[in-house]
């Protein structure tokens, strides 16, 4: 049975049932927290919905071969196997000043097979979706799994075991109004050139650039458990920047705009109104060029959602990845300051701070119906009233923290990237007082208001971070008094989050996101969003340049 919206709800019912029994086994600390809501993200419905993009997909004709590949894996000894057919389409249109820098489209298609033999993984991928090559890939994956299983056994390592999942046949498409690939690259370039022209129209702006990246990730997952899930994800990432140069003083400034990438249709770009945004961007780069440098010191920072989202990503998103905490990422991305024993105990943040992981959030880059090992997506607490309560998990990881169900965080990038734990959307909940950004500024005697994404850097256990921004204003006695330049804030993760003493209300909540969250070896890219209101913290302001 193929499920669109209606069948999809039936599946959801089963999933909730599974979770209700699982909840009894969750460690005590977790039980006090708000319950997980296991209700997959709403997908596009109705005419022109799933039928449109799924119907146009090149993948279904290969499903039969993928099924036979799984049979071959089973008969070679796999206790579990999955096959992922993936067709990625990327389009990038970029303009600089008054010229088109690049129009490019890239399309790739392929299949991967992941097998579990004697509790060890094997994986192989090929772009040649024909029996000879796909079966050879299965054989290579089996060979690896056996070699790895023998090594694991010799080392006395535990076997991989997967949390159970109800098999499902389903389809899901990112909700959208206008397919971004239905707009021609020439029209896109024209819009971008209008934006750079608008920025260059601001007197003093020397250079302007604009681009838009559109991604269609079309994937069909089959598992030996009987799941068959076809999903099409759309992502749109507009970018816009302006540069001003002061040759006399040998100094320059850049300003990048704050429109976030999202899982959405072309309507996102239309609504942003790039030419109008370009004028503001141009005006602000001049303010920035001529702004005074900041006075370093410990102060209040009021962080706009366009800046705070990345701080959430780095200082809450990454430390709560379970594979990092148990040391599996030690060689590259790093470990975590969090330990398993901190679950339900550690005061991570001020008690007004609650953070949810949420793969069902509308517009979120990590929003999907099911993850890459067939787990329905959900929303669950990471920090509840300041207390650390939840991890990000995959099916393999659930048992490591005594849970029986995965949180659905498995993702493999492209057909050639093996699935592993990747970050869901992780979002800070708005405050109950209904504050606006102005309320936060008005309440601040001496501080800096920061918007946009600047330079960012954090250590491998996520203790010490330093983040810049795009625009900075000095706050004096409740007012924005002057723009500043060369500013960054430095803090320790726990001290920073514990210092959070004001949050904006629901009306100030915004989504920010990153298309390039890197992790794993070989490194894979993940797209993820973070929603948040503006918030106030204490941090050390540092001066990052401006010797000239």
């Amino acid at each position, binding site marked *: 049975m193929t499920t669109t919206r209606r069948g999809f709800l039936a599946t959801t019912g089963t999933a909730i049932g599974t979770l209700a029994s699982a909840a009894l086994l969750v460690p005590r600390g977790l039980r006090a927290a708000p319950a997980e809501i296991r209700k997959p993200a709403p997908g596009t419905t109705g005419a022109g919905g799933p039928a449109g993009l799924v119907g146009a997909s090149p993948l279904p004709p290969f499903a039969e071969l993928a099924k036979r590949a799984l049979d071959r894996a089973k008969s070679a000894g796999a206790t579990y196997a999955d096959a992922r057919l993936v067709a990625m389409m990327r389009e990038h249109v970029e303009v600089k000043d008054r010229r088109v820098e690049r129009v490019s489209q890239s399309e790739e298609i392929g299949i991967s097979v992941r097998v579990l033999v004697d509790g060890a993984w094997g994986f192989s991928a090929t772009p040649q979706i024909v029996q000879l090559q796909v079966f050879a890939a299965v054989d290579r994956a089996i060979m690896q799994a056996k070699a790895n299983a023998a090594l694991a056994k010799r080392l006395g390592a535990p076997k991989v075991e997967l949390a159970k999942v109800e098999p499902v046949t389903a389809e899901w498409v990112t909700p959208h109004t206008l397919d971004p690939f239905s707009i021609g690259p*020439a029209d896109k370039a024209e819009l971008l050139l209008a934006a750079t022209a608008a920025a260059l129209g601001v007197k003093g702006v020397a250079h302007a650039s604009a681009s838009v990246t559109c991604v269609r990730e079309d994937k069909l997952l089959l598992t030996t458990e009987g799941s068959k899930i076809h999903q099409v994800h759309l992502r749109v990432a507009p970018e816009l920047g302006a540069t001003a140069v002061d040759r006399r*003083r040998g100094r320059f400034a850049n300003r990048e705009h704050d429109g976030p990438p999202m899982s959405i249709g072309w309507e996102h770009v239309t609504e942003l109104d790039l030419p109008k945004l370009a004028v503001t961007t141009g005006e602000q780069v001049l303010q920035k060029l001529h702004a005074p440098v900041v006075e370093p010191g410990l102060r209040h920072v009021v962080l706009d959602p366009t800046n705070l989202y990345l701080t959430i990503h780095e200082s809450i998103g990454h430390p709560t990845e379970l594979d990092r905490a148990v040391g599996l990422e*030690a060689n590259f991305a790093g470990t975590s300051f969090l330990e398993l024993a901190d679950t339900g105990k550690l005061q991570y943040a001020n008690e007004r701070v609650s953070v949810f992981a949420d793969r069902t959030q509308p517009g979120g880059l990590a929003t999907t119906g099911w993850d890459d090992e067939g787990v329905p997506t959900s929303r669950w607490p990471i920090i509840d009233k300041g207390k650390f309560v939840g991890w990000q998990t995959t099916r393999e990881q659930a048992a490591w923290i005594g849970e029986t169900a995965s949180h659905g965080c498995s993702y493999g990038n492209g057909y050639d990237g093996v699935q592993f734990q990747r970050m869901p959307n992780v979002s800070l909940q708005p405050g109950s007082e209904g504050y606006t950004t102005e309320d936060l500024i008005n309440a601040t005697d001496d501080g800096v208001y920061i918007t946009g994404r600047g330079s960012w850097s954090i*250590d491998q256990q996520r203790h010490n971070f330093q983040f810049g921004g795009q625009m900075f204003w000095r706050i004096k006695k409740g007012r924005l008094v002057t723009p500043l330049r060369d500013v960054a804030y430095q803090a320790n993760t726990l001290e920073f989050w514990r210092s959070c003493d004001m949050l904006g209300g629901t009306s100030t909540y915004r989504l920010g996101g990153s298309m390039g969250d890197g992790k794993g070896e070989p490194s894979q890219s993940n797209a993820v969003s973070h929603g948040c209101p503006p918030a106030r913290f204490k941090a050390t302001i*540092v001066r990052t340049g401006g010797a000239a």
Partner: protein
Amino acid sequence: MTLTAAAAKALCRIALGSATFGDVRVHVRSRQTGDLRFGASRPTTGGDVETIEMRVTAQRDGRRATVTGNRTDRASLEALVARAETLAALSPVDPEATGPLGPIKPMRVVARDAKVARMTPQVRADLVGEAIEAGRLRGLEVSGHLQHSETAEAFADRRGLSAFHVGTELVMTCTCRTPDGTGSSKGGFTSHARGTFSPRELATRVAEAAMRSRDPKPVEPGRYTVVLMPDAVAELLDFLVSSMDARAAIEGRSFFAKAGGGTKLGDALFDPRVTLRSDPSDRTNPSSPLADDGSPHARTTWIDRGVPKVLHASRSYAQLAGVPAVPRPGHIHMDGESNDLDALVGKVQRGLLVTRLWYNRMLDPKGIVATGLTRDGTFLIEGGKIGHAVKNLRYNDGPVTLLSKLVALGRPERAGMSSGRVWVVPPVVADGFNFESTSDAI
């Protein structure tokens, strides 16, 4: 198996044969990789992956588009070319468009090792097992990654460009952590050839460094004399090499821009012992003789005895500005001196030894000031001797300090944890490197 030269060129011929534009350029990239990760002293994930990429750029009257696909049958190739031409016709005119490259004579580079190309899952498991066991012998938790790859690529256009290169790469990195979580170190090996590489020796060396790095003591942030090991040097020089861009310099947007206009080429900017060169045909550490757009890499001296000599420039900017077209390098060699590590440390009364730098991000392109943190073994040097481990520190500084406040250089070696380009650089001793704060990260 990756494509042979004949097979790659055949694909180019098919694609070019179906072109209707006079200017169509093709790039084929075929890659075979095998890898195995390990973490918490056990193998985790890995795979054997095959990819192929066909990139077609079509241009007419300044209208240009690039499409990429990964199907290699005749019909798909023809469709790809047709799409590139259709898309180009729809694209706005680029006033800076350049013509096709035409015939080139790339340097002769031998960069393929059959032993690396033919590694099997069993060999990977054996090598990983060796590393894990060596670390466990000392009671440490071992993680890392082993990857071997073979990459073949061809470039062709309708003006007669026809170039091919094939190379292999073997990379193994290994991290050892003490069970109490107070010590950690990392090391790596990167080469086109298997040679005499021993995972046991790598893991043993890393394990010993991890043991020495236990229980780090905090030191006050501030300016220190530093001994930067080759991977840390490569991390900082990466910012320098990126900023040696002609366009940014001429447009006043970089360190190499002169106040009032022009560039700093020819100015004595750094210590006279600083020489930075590229040589793709380096026998021990070869790199591809072909740049991303098919342009040939040449032997280049970027900085000669402290004086910058060349900035890189894209073909289109070179044409516009009347400067030489020079692709970004895939290989950097920094000259050194004959000091071994003891001799370098011996020159430092009080300072810090830094194994590597992490999460490096540009702060100020004008001064090439970056931020990041030390990682995997940072030690206090007192009275010319390596002392106890210190807590990791965040730096806000960059390659300019390193190259202008230079004290001494060691012998150049391959930076085994640094990828992206081939780095052969010495350990460097420099004065007054700025650390902003400490971190509890191990």
